[in-house]
């Protein structure tokens, strides 16, 4: 019988994740919370990349570019667009449903916010100025990312394997160059500041948490993680998942059998890009700063390593792999001295993961976590089947 242990363990683990911030109370609370939030962020990226690469067979290296587009999309709204109750008269603005949407000139093109500051000085008491609503910012980020996904999905329709990989690597390098060079808009390498997830703090069940508190951010990221995983699993298990796998196995054969390859290829790009962009926007708000360095190839390598070591063709395994590896990366930071040589672990841990990635690909093609899950699930199934057959033969 197929063991249900992994599924039961999964549900228990999900429940524990929900309870964790409430029961955990050690001194390094904030640090551990931060690790979990980062782990969820990577898990979202790795599992959505696993859908794109493992199911759709599209080995795109632009996943973090979509993430960055989402983050910068939200960041630009956060920094340059404000809602006011009174018209300023001097800024670029237009009225909508009783509020004014004010567009500030970007930082590099003059004194940012000067027109708003000047107008505020003349306003009567009680006039309000607020940032663009957070949810709309994140939604905008997701739309920007999804739109870019559509565009890239369209551009790479004719490209296979190596061409696709080359094209997407180059594309994310270009995006990084643009984000670093267009200082007037993005502030370049210095990074773009972003307001926290809950700028005024939030009260949950009578406890008030400040803007820097980790618990609300933890639940936001956890909710996003669960929502993403459910959506991805639903897609993977529906007919769409079959279409995607047919794309991966043989595009021409799939097309001959009536699968609209163009549509589904585009769709999987849009979906995974929008997910990555949402994660980027939320993470940007949580960290409070976005820089072009989130786009370096190392970050993409990490996401790929997580998905591959977890298991490319199993979204849950990819997510578990991401969580385990992002914790391992953090705990392997401590330098140590061996035989008089000081080992700089911030570098050597990455050497270790590179090696692990190569060895996993070479010897455990299904990934470590997925392999383990399959082994637990199917342990004894072979013997059981043999026994059943033998019993059936004897009964004859």
């Amino acid at each position: 019988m197929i063991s249900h242990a992994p599924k039961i363990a999964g549900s228990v683990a999900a429940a524990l994740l929900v309870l964790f911030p409430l029961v955990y109370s050690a001194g390094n609370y904030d640090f551990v919370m931060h690790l979990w939030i980062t782990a969820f962020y990577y898990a979202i990226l790795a599992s959505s990349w696993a859908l794109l690469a493992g199911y759709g067979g599209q080995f795109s290296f632009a996943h973090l570019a979509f993430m960055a587009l989402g983050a910068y999309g939200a960041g630009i709204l956060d920094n340059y667009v404000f809602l006011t109750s009174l018209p300023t008269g001097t800024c670029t603005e237009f009225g909508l449903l009783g509020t004014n949407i004010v567009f500030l000139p970007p930082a590099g093109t003059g004194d940012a916010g000067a027109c708003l500051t000047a107008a505020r000085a003349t306003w009567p008491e009680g006039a309000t100025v607020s940032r663009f609503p957070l949810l709309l910012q994140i939604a905008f980020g997701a739309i920007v990312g999804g739109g870019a996904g559509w565009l890239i999905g369209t551009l790479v329709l004719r490209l296979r394997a190596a061409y696709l990989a080359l094209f997407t690597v180059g594309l994310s390098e270009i995006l990084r160059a643009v984000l670093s060079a267009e200082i007037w808009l993005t502030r370049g390498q210095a990074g773009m500041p972003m307001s926290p997830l809950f700028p005024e703090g939030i009260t949950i069940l009578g406890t008030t948490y400040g803007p820097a508190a980790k618990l609300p951010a933890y639940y936001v990221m956890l909710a996003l993680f669960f929502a993403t995983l459910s959506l991805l699993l639903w897609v993977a298990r529906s007919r769409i998942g079959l279409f995607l796998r047919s794309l991966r196995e043989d595009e021409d054969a799939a097309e001959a059998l009536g699968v609209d390859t163009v549509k589904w290829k585009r769709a999987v790009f849009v979906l995974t890009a929008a997910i990555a962009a949402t994660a980027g926007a939320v993470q940007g708000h949580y960290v409070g700063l976005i820089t072009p360095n989130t786009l370096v190839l190392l970050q993409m390598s990490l996401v790929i390593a997580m998905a591959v070591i977890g298991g490319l063709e199993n979204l849950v395994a990819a997510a578990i792999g991401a969580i385990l590896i992002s914790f391992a990366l953090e705990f392997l930071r401590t330098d140590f001295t061996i035989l008089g040589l000081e080992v700089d672990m911030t570098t050597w841990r990455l050497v270790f993961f590179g090696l692990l990635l190569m060895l996993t690909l070479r010897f455990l093609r299904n990934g470590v976590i997925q392999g383990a899950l399959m082994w637990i699930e199917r342990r004894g199934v072979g013997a059981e089947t043999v026994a059943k057959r033998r019993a059936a033969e004897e009964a004859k």
Partner: protein
Amino acid sequence: MDHPGFFSLAILWMVLWGAIGGAVIHRAYLARDLDVTAARTVGVAVGAATGPFGLVPLYLRTPTLTRAWQALPWIGVVTVFLFAFRASDPDNVCFTSGTFVTSQLVNGLIMGTIYGLMALGLALIFSIIGIVSFSHGEFYMIGGMVVYYMTEVWAPGLGPIAAVIAACAVTFGIGAAFERAFFTPIYAGKVERPNEYAILVTFGLAFFLQYLVQGLSGANPVKASPFFELPRSEWPAGAPIIETTRSNIKLFDMISISTPRLTAAILSVVMLLALIWFLYNTWTGRALRATAQDRQAAAVAGINPGRMNMLAFGLGCMLAGLAGAVLVQAFSWLPQTGAIPALRAFVIIVLGGLGSLPGAFIGGLILGLVEAAGAGCVPDPTRAAAYLPAYGMIILTLVLLLRPQGLFGRKV
């Protein structure tokens, strides 16, 4: 730039008519039941170069698209682009100073030779094994690192040539060993999707090597001293045709070339000639080319394809290492140095046609010229430098959209 608006309009005009041309001409040829293989590309070029004035006759006459038809409109596109650029930015140094332009041209060709050498390695690997190596940049970096350590730390007495040979040996060894350890399952048919497996596993190798080098040598940039230093001289004295200083050569008082780059280019050309000699005049070289042309026929003729795979991957990595080894004296070197050259090599092999060796070299020269033009002519110098990798990417995008088989490639 004096008239940025005019320039944007001109580009928009070209893109618009190019897009229209690509769609309409393709349809015209399709409707008249003619050969459509080149119709789209020619339509784009004619549209971008001449707008409606060329498209309408082309649409009405639909001539047979010969090679001249495929090449000439592109020259027109470049000319129109240059005129638009000149009209919108008349004071640009690229139009006012002939000296500067010649200098940039020569430097572009010199860098292009070295780019070509590196891309040749990637093309060699692709032509034999059929995969694109994502660790190419790391072999470039390792080649440079070996030369740095040989000339500056381990054996300064041996001289740069010995160091370059050592770099070749190291990169060949790593490449060949990696191929034996990780690619054999592909040939045995044990990998479900060999292309993707190869991409990921070479990507893993890149990751591993980059941080291994960082762990061993530290994250600080290193700089090797130039291989050769010239005495200060003039020839003929008075009105010099060749004027040399320690690290610079000046020709006709206008073309300035830095010596490290020149020695790098000369070494590259020598190595390239050696490689061509090897490929065309030795049994092993012929066997390599035979395997690239037809694997099964080569195997029937008694060539061990497995051995050729190892040799091709080793040689390809060695060429990348060689490019790094000769360039380490011109730039400062970091464990991350390989990323941009690797990207460049990708652009070049796609431009030249995946797997085409002459294409890789000519693609290298083209990219060298384009980058020199980009670095020299784009107004705003800080932006020009930041966007240096982007020029190649624009070429890549255009090639992938318009002619995915590249300049010299077989149809994909």
